[in-house]
């Protein structure tokens, strides 16, 4: 297991990958990707038990589903840096004939991806299905899923929340990227989510909270979440993040949800992020 400093180094490299990928094709979603970087690194390099080579059915290993598929850059970087596919393939992001589609898909056979996502609100349902299959198989490994907070405006998510409790899906750990931002502005202005903690609790979930940009806190909270599994209730972590975390001019605004940096902005961003594992 890598120590805290090593995880932070990986996160710095992943952030470099993200801004370089998005800059190279001049499209994609850097804001949410940067905000969730520490979570992804903690998940793939510390918390999750996962195997290579990739197997679609995930038998005997933890599975991860990304519901807010638009933050594909962070996932692709972490998958590549974890050994799922060559790091050089990150250069193909969003380009013709690439396995690294704008939004993640199984369609081109990219190792690590188990379902397409992008149209929001669907990932939690899929993850619950996978978790139920694990229960049927007496497979004690876990299912992780990440959703956005704006995504919770989709009705299907609430159907899924209700069903996870009813079906005693206690082998699932949901994380909500609670950055308070969406395309048209602050979530509280676009469509307020209200008291998120109370809402998840009312649906019967164990609710944890963490600062998703503090690596040690992420690791500790994931450990805590795992300890709550197998006790009859599903677990959700409300994860406060800063959209654009790690790149000062991208932070604190929804502006960088879905636009790419120009050459000068790329240089500025890379100047703030140490190259630790070697750029692709």
């Amino acid at each position, binding site marked *: 297991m890598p120590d805290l400093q090593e995880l932070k180094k990986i996160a710095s490299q992943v952030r470099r990958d993200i801004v370089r990928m998005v800059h190279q094709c001049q499209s994609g979603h850097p804001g949410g990707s940067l905000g969730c970087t520490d979570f992804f690194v903690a998940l793939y390099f510390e918390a999750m038990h996962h195997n290579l080579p990739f197997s679609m059915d995930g038998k005997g290993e933890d599975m991860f589903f990304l519901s807010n598929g638009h933050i594909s850059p962070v996932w692709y970087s972490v998958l590549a840096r974890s050994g799922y596919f060559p790091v050089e393939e990150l250069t193909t992001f969003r380009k013709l004939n690439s396995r690294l589609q704008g939004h993640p898909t*199984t369609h081109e056979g990219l190792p690590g991806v188990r379902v*397409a996502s992008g149209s929001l609100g669907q990932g939690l*349902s*899929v993850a*619950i*299905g*996978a978790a139920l299959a*694990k229960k049927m198989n007496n497979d004690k490994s876990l299912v992780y899923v990440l959703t956005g907070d704006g995504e919770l405006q989709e009705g299907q998510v609430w159907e*899924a929340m209700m*069903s996870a409790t009813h079906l005693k899906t206690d082998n699932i750990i949901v994380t909500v990227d609670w950055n308070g931002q969406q395309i048209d502005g602050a979530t509280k202005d676009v469509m307020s989510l209200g008291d998120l903690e109370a809402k998840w609790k009312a649906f019967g979930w164990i609710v944890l909270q963490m600062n998703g940009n503090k690596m040690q806190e992420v690791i500790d909270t994931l450990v805590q979440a795992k300890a709550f599994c197998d006790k009859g209730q599903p677990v959700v972590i409300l994860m406060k993040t800063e959209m654009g975390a790690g790149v000062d001019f991208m932070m604190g605004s929804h502006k960088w949800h879905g636009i790419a940096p120009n050459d000068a902005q790329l240089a500025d961003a890379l100047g703030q992020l140490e190259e630790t594992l070697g750029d692709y």
Partner: protein
Amino acid sequence: MLTDFQITGKKATRDGFGDGLLAAGQQHPNVVGLCADLIGSLKMNAFMDAFPDRFIQTGIAEANMMGMAAGLATAGKIPYTGTFANFSTGRVYDQIRQSIAYSGKNVKICASHAGLTLGEDGATHQILEDIGLMKMLPGMTVINPCDYNQTKAATIAIAEHEGPVYLRFGRPGWPIFMPDNQPFVIGKGIMMQEGTDVTIIATGHLVAYAMEAVEKLKAQGISAELINIHTIKPLDEEIILDSIAKTKCVVTAEEHQRNGGLGDSVAQLLSRKNPTPQEYVAVNDSFGESGKPDELLLKYGLGPDNVVEAAQEVLKRKKA
């Protein structure tokens, strides 16, 4: 009646699904059933009772059901989702498109109460667009069996087919005329009656009416060939092209909108391979209404006599 196909009884196609699901579950330990609060309507009780650990009541939440099915399939299960055709398609189109079809998931979307023959509940529930919706999805197999026996056989067969399937069936009691324990081959049409003057291609409930029409045409001295197309996608091009080469005109018959249905698939094939005069027995850009199944089929132009008239009409346009 047709020489090779005698009516042996009457049962709903949804009963064929229920019995087929039980058999599929007995044959394949990975088959899992999901139902959105319509267990009795879908006839899923027998499966649920036999395999309670492999059955999931999802409540009235079809979008979530489709997503859960995608997740179950990801983990190696063979999920069969059950609800009405309306809620199996239009209501959850994006979930099917992204999480099932685009993701290549081995989910069997099983849809009862399709079409006008749902009856008294009326147009809100009588989906007539579902074949079109589903056949447009890349990689989706679309099956619309004609009677109890064929629906049962199809339900068992799709468990062994890798990939997403839309299986469409109906509510009312309906004549049984296909043989028991028939082999069901996805994508292979069935020659019900050979003929020389006109080809009738029918699917689902309308196969029974087309059989009546063949008899009526025979009485008028018209030799009709009848093909039972249970798989609309992939379409059995060979059986259709071979027949058309002989008869040179065609009638398609289905309990669906003219737009997007079997007739459209046949027309697309023929326009590319052998342009042929065609008449459609289908709903003409209209919603349904409340009524009894047979009354509705007659009112909306889907009765046996409509098939006869369509045959007479297309024969006038047949090129020598």
